[in-house]
């Protein structure tokens, strides 16, 4: 069967970079990153269910520098996807479409995701003591 050559989206390389599109791309990228992260979440739960040895291996991984690096990436991804997801829900409800508002909400999401990540890690450090 011959395929009809229709224009395909997205042609990222022809667009001028702007906050709104960058945040949209990051939303998708963080979503994919979090999808990979769920494998590790399930591993952690299974390790806890399996027994002390399996759990020690999992905790050892999360305590290692690569584990912490991944957790920092996933925690920021989670907060970003959560905040920008709420931004999307407002759009779905019909609010915030003015150009000024989309930029304001966009920068709010960026700031909130970073602030929440920092707060989460300070809280974790305080719990650990």
């Amino acid at each position: 069967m011959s395929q009809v050559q229709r224009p395909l989206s997205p042609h990222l390389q022809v667009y001028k970079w702007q906050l709104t599109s960058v945040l949209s791309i990051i939303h998708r990228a963080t979503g994919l990153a979090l999808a990979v992260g769920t494998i590790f979440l399930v591993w952690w739960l299974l390790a806890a269910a399996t027994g002390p040895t399996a759990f020690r291996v999992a905790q050892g991984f999360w305590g290692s520098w690569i584990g912490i690096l991944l957790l920092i990436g996933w925690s920021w991804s989670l907060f970003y996807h959560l905040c920008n997801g709420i931004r999307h829900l407002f759009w779905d409800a019909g609010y915030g479409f003015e150009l000024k508002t989309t930029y304001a909400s966009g920068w709010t999401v960026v700031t909130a995701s970073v602030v929440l990540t920092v707060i989460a890690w300070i809280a974790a450090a305080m719990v650990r003591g």
Partner: protein
Amino acid sequence: MSDARLRSPLGRVMGLGSAKEGVAHWWAQRLTAIALIPLLIWFVSAVIGLTGAGRGDVVAWLRRPMPAIATVLLLIAAFYHMALGVQVVIEDYVHSEWSKLTLLVLNKFVAFVLAAAGIFAVLRIAFQG
């Protein structure tokens, strides 16, 4: 409206068009997103509280009814949301018919396997410790 006469009364009343599913995908993505907002805020807080915890603490936490139920709900909403999101990414970027079909099937299978494994782990801890 010549179009209206070509469609059956049932087809017109269902209003789903040729794709046969209407806004089901879109709506489920939003429903799971809304469910995930409180579930994730709770889960992230709880996990921060478990920083550096041993298996005993995690088991004691998941043996309580509310954390166990909320974690199962989180896993259901998260994997449902993930399957829907990854599906759209595959549909957007994979244009070869067989690769697309394979990835779409794989996406659903992986989501179900991970969800089943995660829920099993939580239930095993909740009932057996």
